[in-house]
């Protein structure tokens, strides 16, 4: 009796989970199928599920309309530059806040924390002007320059450094290692989970960011994929096969990375929830 109830409950749970998974993954399947249809096939009533013939025309239209390859390169450079810079700079600052004593430490940390409260989207007018005065509008540098620094990353990694046992560090110091050596060869390896979590979050945010690139880079050749897709939609308002092909190609790199690093991504996200 008991096991019967248990298995029935489990069937109910799996039905629920499958339904939820279909709701979450279904749109991606529909996106994929539509991208291989022609416009007439896509707008047929009632719709056909599978494309009658698999057309690649949507994909070639994307390449004909926007400099997709260049945008992909811009997105990759933007993402790598922001992520590498944040991992280095935030961990350096976090180490100083967690382990070094210096005058004005709590004041400076308070200032950093106050930035955490300010949504960065609201600061784009002065940020735009700085980029403009540096003559960096419509350059790849403009895409990643402000995003190289992060109060959130500094705060997150500081929490990691604070929670680390001081013994290892002391042992290294007694062996004559200076702060640079301690930071690089003792602290950073120990903070690996935190660095991975910050790296993953920064990668996702940088790849997906829209408002900032939209504002600083109006030249299609200097846009990342997010802004490029938005302009693609401006040109193909209702040509859904082309739009689906573009949207799919812009997300596939992230999905591939996610599938490969799935465990680490999810652990990293969960970690920010418990540490932050």
């Amino acid at each position, binding site marked *: 009796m008991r096991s019967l109830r248990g298995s029935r409950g489990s069937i109910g749970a799996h039905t629920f989970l499958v339904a*939820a998974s279909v709701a979450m993954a279904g749109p991606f399947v529909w996106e994929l199928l*539509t991208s291989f249809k022609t416009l007439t096939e896509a*707008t047929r009533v009632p719709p056909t599920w599978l494309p009658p013939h698999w057309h690649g025309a949507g994909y070639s239209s994307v390449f004909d309309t926007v400099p997709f390859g260049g945008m992909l390169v811009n997105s990759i450079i933007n993402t790598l530059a922001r992520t590498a810079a944040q991992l280095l*700079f935030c961990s350096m*600052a976090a180490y100083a806040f967690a382990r070094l004593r210096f005058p004005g430490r709590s004041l400076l940390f308070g200032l950093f924390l106050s930035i955490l409260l300010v949504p960065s989207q609201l600061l784009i*007018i002065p940020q735009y002007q700085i980029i403009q005065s540096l003559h960096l509008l419509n350059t790849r540098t403009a895409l990643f320059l402000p995003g190289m620094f992060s109060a959130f990353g500094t705060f997150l990694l500081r929490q990691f450094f604070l929670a680390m046992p001081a013994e290892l560090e002391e042992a290294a110091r007694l062996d004559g290692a200076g702060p640079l050596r301690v930071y690089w060869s003792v602290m950073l390896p120990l903070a690996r989970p935190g660095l991975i979590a910050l790296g993953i979050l920064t990668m996702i945010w940088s790849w997906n960011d829209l408002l900032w690139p939209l504002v600083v880079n109006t030249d299609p050749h200097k846009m990342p994929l997010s802004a490029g897709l938005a302009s693609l*939609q401006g040109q193909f308002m209702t040509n859904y096969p082309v739009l689906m092909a573009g949207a799919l190609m812009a997300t596939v790199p992230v999905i591939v990375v*996610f599938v490969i690093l799935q465990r680490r991504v999810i652990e990293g996200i969960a970690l920010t929830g418990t540490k932050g």
Partner: protein
Amino acid sequence: MTVAGATARPVAPAASTPAAPRDRGARRRRRRQRGKEAAWAAFFLAPTALGLGVFYLWPVLQTFYYSFTTWGPFGGHTFSGLANYRALAHDPDLRSAFVNTLWYCLLGLAGIPVALVLAAVLARPGRRGVGVYRALLFLPVVTMPVAVAIVWRWLYAGDYGLINTLLAKVGIHGPYWISDQSTALIAVALVGLWSSVGYTMVILMAGLESIPRQYYEAAQIDGAGPVRQFFALTLPLLSPSLFFVTVLSVIGTLQTFDLVYVLIGQTNPALPQTRSVVYLFYQDAFVNNNRGYAAAIAFVLLLVTVALTGFQFRLQKRWVHYA
């Protein structure tokens, strides 16, 4: 935990010698040590302090100043006192943008119970296929919002959209979701919910998994049923995680931009019913070149964000239990 024990130990050899008045050498050495440490701190902090100062702290002050200025067509600006704020108070567009944004905020919070149910079902010990379900449910989180919005525009399409096709099968004639003024806001909010529920779920799952199983065994022995266990054990022990996702959800939904920008677009008749504050800010700052006014909008939204977050932190004393 380990930190407290560790800091009690002498840190540097110089600090362990008591400061005797005659021992000037030791004191000087210690001062030099301190100075050295401060110099190292300056080195480690320099990039981030400089970057955050230039690109974040200074812009806050600059935006505040701009909110008191009026901009000419060629980029020059003059001080105009409270004129922008006075105009804001009577701007129907701003009022509706705030109402819309608060709706996004509220509807976004509705995703938390959904995520909680999913997390609870998934986190049950012995559940099979957790990894696969979790990955599928998390997929929308890593997907670019622009791409998400493009796909949902297609799903929502009035005549050929998949949603209306499926509704027609059960005899419902679906509306033109994103151009109908009565459904557009909910349609946008639903997509936001769809793309964030996986994130909330993962954080809540981590919270659930950190609750010791013995608590439930003890509750069972005391005769507490599943409902009682949920309200007396799970909810209080999960409250820090719930608080965290609530704060993040509110801050995130107050920033709604991408979805409205792509899903709705400039010419949609339902734009006034869906336009968010950040969208209005973007239009004024970079389409209409009305930057002083835009700065005032930004500052008001900033104050609302800080106020709502502060309010939640005050409220947390009432319902969040830290173990």
